C-alpha cells in the first residue's frame, strides 16, 4: 500500500507529491493529462488584483479576505492557508526550481509587459523576464522605469507576437510611479527549421537550444538595437537548455527580456518539465494518462482510488488521498444544462454561492467560478453544510478549491502552491501520528 495517492499533475499535485516524497512517504501521482502550468505564463501570481492592482500581496491579504468575506459566505482558499503557507509554498517552489527557473519575492509584486502591451502584476518570474520588470514598490526601482527605451522585436516566422501592437500600447501605459516608457517595434527573421515560414514558439525555442543556431539571431539583434535600449522578444528563447537565454543575452550585450505568448507557453513548459523531472527523480510514482474514476471507501475513510488502467481498473490503495485535479478547466468540476454543478471524480459535496451562477456581464466576475470543494485549515475536504470531513483522509489543493476567482484575482498559482504545501504538511504529520 502507498502512503499517499495524489490525483492530478498540475502545479499543486506536482508540488505536493514532491514534498510528500521528500518527507519519506511513498507517493503515487495519477493524472490523465498535463495540468494548466504550461498554458500559463511561467510566472507565479500570488494576488494581482483585489480588484485594484496589488503591490504587496501578503500585507494586503487580510483586507482582501475581509472584503471577500463580506461579499460571499464561501471562505477563500487563502482564508485557510493564511499568508504563512503562501510564503512557505512559493519559497519552497522557488528553491526546488532554482534561480535558473524562478526569481522574485512573495512580499512585493512587480509588473511585466504582456503580449498586448499591458502591465501585469506577478510575484515570481523566470530570470529571462527580469530585464522587463516594472516595479510596483516606489522604494525599489525595476529594470524598466520612466523614460526607459524598449524595442519590441517580432520574429517574422512566428505569428503570435505583434511588436507594433505591443510597443504602441506599452508607450501609452502610465507607469505606477508616473511617467512612461519609450517603445518602438522592429523585426527579425529566424526560421526554426529549413523552409518553415510559420513556426510554433516551441519550434523556435528548440532551435535556440542549439548553441550553433543562436548566432543568427544575435547578429540581427545587435544590428537593430540602439544604445541604451532594452530588447523585448517573444518568450521562445530556449526550451530544454536552461542557459540558452543567459547565453543569448550576453552575446547580444544589452538588456533583453521575454514576453509570454499564447500556448504553447514555453516558460510554463520549462517549469512543468523541471517539476516533473524532480518528482520522478525523487521516485514519485507517476501514472501518466490514467483517469481516476472514483474511489472505494468504508466508515468515512477512503481506501483506494480506482484508476482506469487499460483493460482493467486498478484499485490503488493508500493511507491518504490528495485531490489536486483542477477545476472546470480540467473537467473535475462540471456544469450541466440544468445549472447543476458537480465534482466528477469522487462526487464530493460542493460549496456553491447563492443566487444565479452565471450572469451576462462579460467583464465582471462569474459566481460559478468560485464553486469548488470546501476544506478546513488542514485542507481536509469538508461538507459545506456541516463543516465535517467527508472522508477523514481526503485532502484537496489547487483549482478544485471553492471561494476564489483565480483569473480575476490573479491568484491561481499562489493558491495552488499554498494549499499544496498546507495539505502535504498536514498529511505528513497525520500519517506520522498514525504510525506512532
Amino acid at each position: 500500500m502507498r502512503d499517499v495517492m495524489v490525483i492530478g499533475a498540475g502545479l499543486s499535485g506536482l508540488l505536493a507529491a514532491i514534498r510528500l516524497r521528500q518527507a519519506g512517504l511513498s507517493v503515487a501521482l495519477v493524472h490523465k493529462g498535463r495540468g494548466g502550468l504550461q498554458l500559463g505564463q511561467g510566472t507565479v501570481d500570488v494576488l494581482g488584483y483585489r480588484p485594484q492592482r496589488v503591490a504587496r500581496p501578503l500585507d494586503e491579504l487580510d483586507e482582501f479576505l475581509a472584503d471577500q468575506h463580506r461579499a460571499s459566505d464561501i471562505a477563500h482558499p487563502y482564508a485557510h492557508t493564511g499568508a504563512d503557507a503562501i510564503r512557505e509554498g512559493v519559497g519552497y517552489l522557488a528553491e526546488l526550481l532554482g534561480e535558473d527557473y524562478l526569481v522574485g519575492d512573495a512580499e512585493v509584486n512587480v509588473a511585466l509587459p504582456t503580449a498586448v502591451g499591458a502591465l501585469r502584476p506577478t510575484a515570481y518570474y523566470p530570470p529571462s523576464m527580469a530585464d522587463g520588470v516594472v516595479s510596483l514598490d516606489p522604494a525599489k526601482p525595476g529594470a524598466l522605469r520612466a523614460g526607459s527605451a524598449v524595442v519590441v522585436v517580432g520574429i517574422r516566422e512566428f505569428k503570435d507576437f505583434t511588436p507594433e501592437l505591443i510597443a504602441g500600447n506599452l508607450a501609452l501605459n502610465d507607469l505606477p510611479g508616473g511617467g512612461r516608457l519609450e517603445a518602438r517595434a522592429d523585426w527579425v527573421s529566424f526560421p526554426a527549421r529549413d523552409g518553415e515560414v510559420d513556426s510554433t514558439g516551441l519550434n523556435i525555442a528548440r532551435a535556440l537550444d542549439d548553441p550553433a543556431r543562436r548566432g543568427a539571431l544575435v547578429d540581427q539583434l545587435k544590428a537593430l538595437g540602439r544604445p541604451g535600449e532594452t530588447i523585448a522578444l517573444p518568450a521562445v528563447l530556449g526550451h530544454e537548455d536552461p542557459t540558452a537565454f543567459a547565453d543569448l543575452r550576453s552575446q547580444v550585450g544589452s538588456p533583453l527580456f521575454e514576453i509570454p505568448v499564447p500556448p504553447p507557453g514555453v516558460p510554463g513548459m520549462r517549469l512543468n518539465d523541471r517539476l516533473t523531472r524532480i518528482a520522478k527523480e525523487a521516485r514519485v510514482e507517476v501514472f501518466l494518462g490514467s483517469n481516476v474514476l472514483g474511489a472505494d471507501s468504508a466508515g468515512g475513510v477512503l481506501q483506494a482510488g480506482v484508476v482506469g488502467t487499460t483493460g482493467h481498473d486498478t484499485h490503488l490503495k493508500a493511507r491518504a488521498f490528495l485531490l489536486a485535479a483542477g477545476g472546470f478547466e480540467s473537467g473535475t468540476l462540471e456544469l450541466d444544462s440544468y445549472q447543476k454543478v458537480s465534482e466528477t471524480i469522487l462526487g464530493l459535496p460542493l460549496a456553491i454561492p447563492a443566487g444565479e451562477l452565471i450572469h451576462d456581464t462579460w467583464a465582471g466576475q462569474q459566481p460559478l467560478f468560485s464553486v469548488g470543494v470546501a476544506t478546513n485549515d488542514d485542507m481536509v475536504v469538508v461538507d459545506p453544510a456541516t463543516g465535517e470531513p467527508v472522508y477523514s483522509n481526503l485532502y484537496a489543493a489547487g483549482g478544485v478549491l471553492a471561494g476564489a476567482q483565480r483569473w480575476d484575482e490573479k491568484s491561481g498559482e499562489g493558491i495552488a502552491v499554498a494549499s499544496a504545501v498546507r495539505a502535504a504538511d498536514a498529511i505528513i504529520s497525520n500519517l506520522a501520528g498514525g504510525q506512532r
Partner: protein
Amino acid sequence: MSDLLDTNETAVEELGPRPGLAPGQTVWELLAAVSPRIKDNPNTYEAQQLNRVSLDQCVKCTICETMCPVAKVTPLFSGPKFVGPQAERFRNGESVDHTLDYCSSCGICTLNCPQDVKIAEINSMARAVMKKDHMPLRDRLITQTELEGRLLTPFAPVANWALKQKPIRVAVEKVVGVHRDAPMPVAQSQSIKGWLKHRKGPAPRRPGQPDRGPVVFFTGCAGTYFEVETSKKTIEVLEHLGFEVLVPKQGCCGLAEQSNGLFDSARKRVVKLCEQLNAAGKELTVISSSGSCAGMIKHEAHEIMGVDDPAVRSVGTRMRETSEFLLDLFDEDELPTDFKTLEMKIPYHAPCQVKSQGMGMPAIRLMELVPGIRVIESEENCCGIAGTYGLKKEKYDVAQAVGRNLFEKVKEHNEGLAVCDTETCRWQIRNSTGVSTVHPVHVIHAAYGLSDVFSPEV
C-alpha cells in the same frame, strides 16, 4: 447515428462528389467498405464514433503538439492537433492531410491531452482509410511476424548472417522498402515451443514456497521466435515463485497489422489468439513480457479497431505485463524480496505502448527493489521504432531522430546493460547504441540468483 449520416449526405450533395467517397456515400459507409465488420457490429460503430466525437472536446491548448516526438524532429509531419481533431472535421471520407502517414501511432498525444481527446486513435482510424487503395506490399509483409518467425527459426544462422550482409540489405530496401540499417531481430535456432518441449519439466520452486496455482503465459510472436530468452526467464521466475505456468498454443495478436492499417486481418488474429488463451482457463491471470502485445489485447483492439468480442474482453481484463504482475504481488506483500545485491546503474526506457496502458512504470519500482540497482529513466517519449514505423525506408531517419536523445542517454549511463519492456524497442536501442538491452525480467531472474544478469540477451 442517423443524424450524423444525414449531415454528411447533405454535405456531399452540396459540395458535389469527392474523391474516395462515391456520390451519396457517407464516411461511415466508406469505413464499412474498408472494414466490413463495422456494418455487422453496432458496438464497433459506437467505439469508432466515440473516438471521433471526442474531437469536440479539443480546446486547442496545443499540449499534444508540444509532446509529439515526431513533430519535434521533422517538419514533414503537421502534428497531432492538426492531423487529429482539426483535420478530422474536414476529412469526410478523403484524407485532407497526407502527412498523417508520418504519425507513428505512439499514442503520446492521447496520454498528455487533458481533455481526453482520442488523438492517436483518430489518426490510426483515418490512416486505415487513407491507405486502403494503395497499401504498400512492404506493409503487408512486415506485419506477418508469425510467419517470419516460423520461416527464420529453422535457418537461424543463415538468416542472421544474411541480415548482416550490406548488399542483401540494400536489395531488401530496394525491393521491399525496409531500410538497410533498420534493426532486425536475431533469429533463434529454437523457438520457445521447442524449448518447452525439450526441457525436463518446470524450474524448481524456491525453497519452502507453496504452490500458487496456474497462470497463463502469452509469449507474443517476438517472444516465441526471437526474444526466446525473455520468455524462458519469465516462465522460470514465475515457477520459482510457485506458479504453474501454462503456455497454450497461440498465434499473433495482430498489432503490427493494426498499426499498418490492416484492420480486418488484425481483428481476426486478435480474436483467434484470445480464444486460444481462453482455452487454457477462463479465469486465470494472463501474463505477458511483450509489453506492446499486452496493450493490444488490453485496449487497442477495442479502442482503435472497435473489436467487441467477449474472448478479447475477457483476456484483456486478466492480462498483466510481467513487471505489473510482479509489482502487484509486492504491493500485496506476496513477493519475496530476498534479492541478491546487484550494484548497477541501469538506463531504462518505458516504451510508448507500455506508457499508454496507464499503469505507471512498474519496471522502475520493481527493479529498484533489488539492492544496489539504480534506474535512470530515459524521460523520452518514444524510441522511434513504434512497432514497424522505424523499419520503413522513408521513415528510418525520422525514427532515428526521435530516438537520438534516448540513445545518447543509454550510451552515457549504461554499465553494460539497458532495460526496456518491448521487443522492437529493444532491437532499436540495441541497434542504435550497441548496448545489450533486455526485458526487466532478466534483472529479476538474476536477482533471484537464477542466472547472471549478463547472461545472453536473446
